[in-house]
């Protein structure tokens, strides 16, 4: 089984694919988180009724399979809007909105988890809405949100495997290319899985570290 034709240049090819996975994930999770916080705060402030259109828009990104979103977005950008966007750009746009949709749910839930009595105490000390948000709500909500957000980031990293449909050669696509050539699917998928693990593990550990640090006990 370990008598393989895999060469060091093939490994480098896989590493490049892994690099692409990391780049797409970092960009999408960053933009998605910023948008998610914005959308989440807007939804809390406006209430369920007024923010219904936004919630509906975001629900589309949560409900339709990512693969379909990528294919349709790519076609829409090219054929309808006549934009010459690279597959990479489309992939980042779709994944960012996908992340934002989930993230806004996390943000909304986490803000709601801050007791209204605590916020009332902050306001009664003369703090403005913005000061209450900044010094009380955000720090407390962040602690609540962290485990879910880490889960989301890891999920997006793995889901980014689907961006091959818009011609982005990330880790899984690179692996498939090698499989076609070397005909060693199980071994190559094992290596590919190991790469994914190496990317995920530090983030998961970092989350655990923050959780511990913030527990105040």
């Amino acid at each position, binding site marked *: 089984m370990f008598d393989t034709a895999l060469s060091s240049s093939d490994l480098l090819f896989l590493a490049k694919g892994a690099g692409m996975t990391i780049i797409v994930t970092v960009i999408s999770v960053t933009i998605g988180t910023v948008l998610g916080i914005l959308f989440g705060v807007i939804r809390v402030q406006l209430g369920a009724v007024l923010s219904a259109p936004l919630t509906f828009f975001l629900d589309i990104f949560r409900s339709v399979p990512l693969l379909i979103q990528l294919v349709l977005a790519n076609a829409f950008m090219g054929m309808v809007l006549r934009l010459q966007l690279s597959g990479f750009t489309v992939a980042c746009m779709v994944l960012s909105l996908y992340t934002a949709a989930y993230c806004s749910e996390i943000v909304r839930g986490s803000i709601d988890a801050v007791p209204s009595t605590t916020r*009332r105490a902050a306001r009664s000390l003369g703090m403005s809405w913005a000061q209450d948000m900044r010094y009380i709500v955000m720090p407390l909500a962040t602690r609540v949100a962290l485990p879910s957000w880490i889960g989301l980031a890891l999920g997006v990293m793995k889901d980014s495997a689907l961006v091959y449909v818009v011609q982005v050669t990330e880790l899984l696509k690179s692996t498939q290319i090698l499989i076609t050539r070397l005909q060693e699917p199980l071994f190559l998928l094992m290596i590919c899985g190991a790469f994914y693990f190496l990317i995920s593990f530090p983030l998961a550990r970092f989350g655990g570290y923050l959780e511990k640090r913030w527990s105040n006990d």
Partner: protein
Amino acid sequence: MIEIQNVRKSFGPLEVLKGIDLTVQRGEVLTVIGGSGSGKSTLLTCINGLEPIHSGKILVDGTEVHAKSTNLNKLRQKIGIVFQQWNAFPHLTVLENVTLSPRKVLGMGKAEAEVIAEKQLKHVGLGDKLSTYPSRLSGGQQQRMAIARALAMSPDYMLFDEVTSALDPQLVGEVLETLKMLAEEGMTMICVTHEMTFARDVSDRVAYFHQGIMAEIGAPDQLFGDPQHPETRRFLASVR
């Protein structure tokens, strides 16, 4: 001076304040007693504008609390309030809990705010807990921290909303002692409370609230010794 003029307030169809008139002078200690749902806690949250009112007026040093032009964040700096639930900021140490508002609202420097906070925390007996997180404190200690946090803003008025109701019985005393000390120092206070002995010992006047109206107000000796309103008599008989 706090002037409450014919204040009415409803939660949905339920009218909880049915025309309250009350004036509290500087330096006065007023306690408010009454059954649950009598509107006494609601009145406190209306005084610092946390709750809107539907008609009437509340003036604090001549400023109308619920006027659109009133800067509530500014007004609240001189009205401290402490709630039944002590509402510590759990992510901040005891010292940070107390310095946060002086620093961010009053714009004080860190060192200056810490001097004030330490002084107030020592005052309420928490001088040795400065770098502790609230989760490590007892309910009584957290409540005293909340009092110090309000006092650090140097308020002219302090409102206490059943501050001992959520505490274990053996912790009530330490909080009441703190309130007594403030009263003796001349702080203007409105205390909503179920502690009758405290009300009797500390107050200049005691008000009895019943179903959204102030049924009776008077000196503690008079109200407890010779209540005029039949509802007051019934209430006092039931709590004794």
